[in-house]
């Protein structure tokens, strides 16, 4: 199962050194969704966004020994997605000018892109830990805190009892707390917990 576990340098050393399979999956799972979101904000088409991101992740895999640290890999990925996104738009622009003789409308400004990139990466870092919870737990936590649903509503949506929802919620929060104290997961603590843990 692909989960967005926070990345750590040591675990990824085998990716950088020899393009290790499992490490590649970790990189892929960690970055895929945020990069797709980022790309889709540029190209405004989810399918094109996914193609772009898959290409760039494969490229990163082929050039694994060009990277020494997660940070260099990360800027390569964001940079690559941004360039590919604008290349795609340019191409579309050329096509539409060619077809209708009207200048293509630029839908994104470069300055907006930087803000979107920052939003994306921040959400990725803050929320990646929640995504490591067992499925049922994760669903309950998400519905409760992200969608703001009441236990009864979550129960109805998932087809379980209210007490199951409460149990899963407690379990999820406990798991998150444990992981945080045990491993000092650095950047991994979620904004969600930051915002909500105190008022439960």
């Amino acid at each position: 199962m692909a989960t967005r576990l926070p990345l750590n340098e040591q675990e990824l050393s085998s990716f950088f050194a020899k393009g290790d399979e499992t490490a590649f999956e970790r990189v892929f799972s960690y970055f895929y969704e945020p990069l797709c979101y980022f790309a889709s904000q540029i190209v405004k088409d989810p399918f094109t966004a996914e193609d772009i991101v898959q290409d760039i992740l494969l490229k990163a895999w082929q050039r694994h020994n060009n990277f020494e640290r997660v940070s260099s890999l990360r800027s390569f990925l964001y940079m690559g997605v941004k360039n590919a996104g604008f290349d795609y738009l340019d191409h579309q622009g050329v096509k539409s000018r060619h077809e209708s003789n009207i200048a293509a409308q630029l839908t994104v400004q470069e300055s907006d892109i930087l803000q979107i990139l920052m939003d994306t990466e921040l959400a990725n870092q803050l929320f990646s830990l929640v995504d490591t919870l067992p499925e049922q737990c994760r669903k309950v936590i998400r519905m409760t805190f992200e969608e703001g649903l009441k236990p009864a509503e979550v129960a109805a949506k998932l087809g379980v009892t209210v007490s199951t929802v409460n149990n899963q919620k407690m379990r999820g929060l406990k798991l998150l707390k444990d992981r945080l104290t045990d491993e000092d997961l650095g950047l991994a603590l979620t904004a969600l917990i930051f915002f909500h843990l105190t008022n439960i």
Partner: protein
Amino acid sequence: MDEKQIKEALRIIDLVARYLNAQLSSDEAVKLNEWINRNPENRRVFEQLINENRLESTHAAFHAFDTPAALQKVKFRKLELRAIKVQSIWSRPGILKYAAAALLILSIGAYFFINKRLAQSQNVQIVKNDLSPGSNKAILTLSNGKKISLTDAKPGIIASDANLVVKKNTNGSINYENNTVASEYRDEPAYQTITTPRGGQWPQIELPDGTKVTLDAGSSITYPVVFSGSERRVAVTGQVYFSVKHNAAQPFRVTVKDQIIEDIGTEFNINAFDDETAVRTTLIEGSVSVSKNKEHVVLTPGQQAVDRVGNEQIRLKEANLAEVIAWKNGLFHFDHADLKTVMRQVSRWYDVQVFYEGQIPKTDITGEVYRSMKASQVFEVLNNLKVNFRIDGKKIIVTDKN
């Protein structure tokens, strides 16, 4: 927007994330503050960033994308890339052509499958439960007979035995360290065994002498906790990959079935599964000798010693190294394999029994498939064969379509 700007933006994000997690050091706080106060635009960006609703809606939008499906798709694209790479490695032009073609066919079949998403599968029928691939599972048996699950053990010291402690590292590797607390002395040698079940493997074990071993599914290694005396002697079953730490004064010897393999500082793979037709020792690097009764052969890198069941003689041949060590890299690799060869590997890795209904279909299979796929997906890759696979609980029934 250039690379420098992106790097700077990501650096700021790292600080903001630490800020939100209340993990900012005073140094970092100064840096973040300095950036925020540099101009009103930065302050505006910062305020937008830490807006809870904005963060959550960004994160919610991530879920529109399906990571597992995409990963699967990319894996097949990697398979194609690999096919191109393989061409340059293989020296025999005849095989090369077929292999490249077959890999391509496998990849196209795989693509086809992805698009179909198993909806109207042609040759795979799942009666009861698809089969998950094997995973990291092993049991350590201490010299006193006590059994410890390496899978469940938490990282840290997991046992002490004789004058050593066994340690599990966070990446799952196992190694030994001197036990500084209680050094109990014993006369008789103490032996430990690590065993993997069918459907299990253990990627890295470092023996007390520094030798590294990898265990495939349904395999084991038995070794003394202390390598004393004139040799380092271990015994194995199943399939084991060795990377031996050289010590001329104390040669490393492996007993497998009725053979003794002696290493002279080296990497080699032993395949001695009971259901295989031969014991195969393949040398990747260095030098080893293989002995059995009066037979004695010395291997050079790239060679394989084949000791067929019922044969007195040990035969030497050039090995296909990619095929031999594929398992260690998480792959099934077939080079003109027949169906039974393929199914023996499947049966060990998915821990299933294989039954043939009617004739065993004649096939010639070449290509690579990831071991991390479910059984149905592996069969789906074999789509172009005229063979039906039926998965029924822990059984796979194979039928010829002809």
